[in-house]
């Protein structure tokens, strides 16, 4: 499936865009998404272990599945407030 990932902050700088398109297997997990992101954008590995993923506006763990058509976002640790 094709997944569009919204990217923010330092991640957005590293991938050069606020959204990137990844090709993932139909049963892909958040961990698979990370792996694909590192492969397409090797510079993103500098954020390995720090990146957070949200699926449909909720935080998702590494093992969570990514449903087809979901809104997916990926970002480094937050620093608002």
């Amino acid at each position, binding site marked *: 499936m094709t997944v569009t990932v919204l990217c*923010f902050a330092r991640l957005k700088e590293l991938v050069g865009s606020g959204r990137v398109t990844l090709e993932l297997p139909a049963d892909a997990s958040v961990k698979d998404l990370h792996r694909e992101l590192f492969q397409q954008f090797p510079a993103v590995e500098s954020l390995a272990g720090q990146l957070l993923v949200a699926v449909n*506006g909720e935080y998702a763990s590494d093992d969570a599945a990514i449903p087809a058509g979901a809104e997916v976002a990926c970002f480094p640790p937050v620093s608002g407030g």
Partner: protein
Amino acid sequence: MEPQLQIRLTRAPINHVELTEAVRSPLCGAVVSFLGTVRELTQGRQTTYLEYDAYEPMAESELRKLAEQAAEKWGLHAVAITHRLGALDLGEIAVAVAVSSPHRREAFEAASEIMSVMKQTVPIWKKETWADGETEWIHPE
């Protein structure tokens, strides 16, 4: 009674008076307000200005969750939270929180906890522009 919640993201300067007035009530003896403002110096290094970016729909929903949970936990009458986005000058308000409660301790605890949790969970990011021209997204380890 359901608590009153007011959650906002804005690119305009924050009117902290409006937040404080929004939570006041003759049912409450205590109002606690917090302002987070842009500090000139961070560990001795001079800031020129800050920028905040957000994943807006999720930032709003996380702020709302946070306000609901605090209202429930501390028995608050009302919670108002506004976070600024975009570029901010030194001294400007980045975030304002106001809570009201029948009693003082709950209002202090709630406002303090809202700020602590916000800094962990709400998808908003700060970019420093230092006086030497360098820029840096802040991502706590």
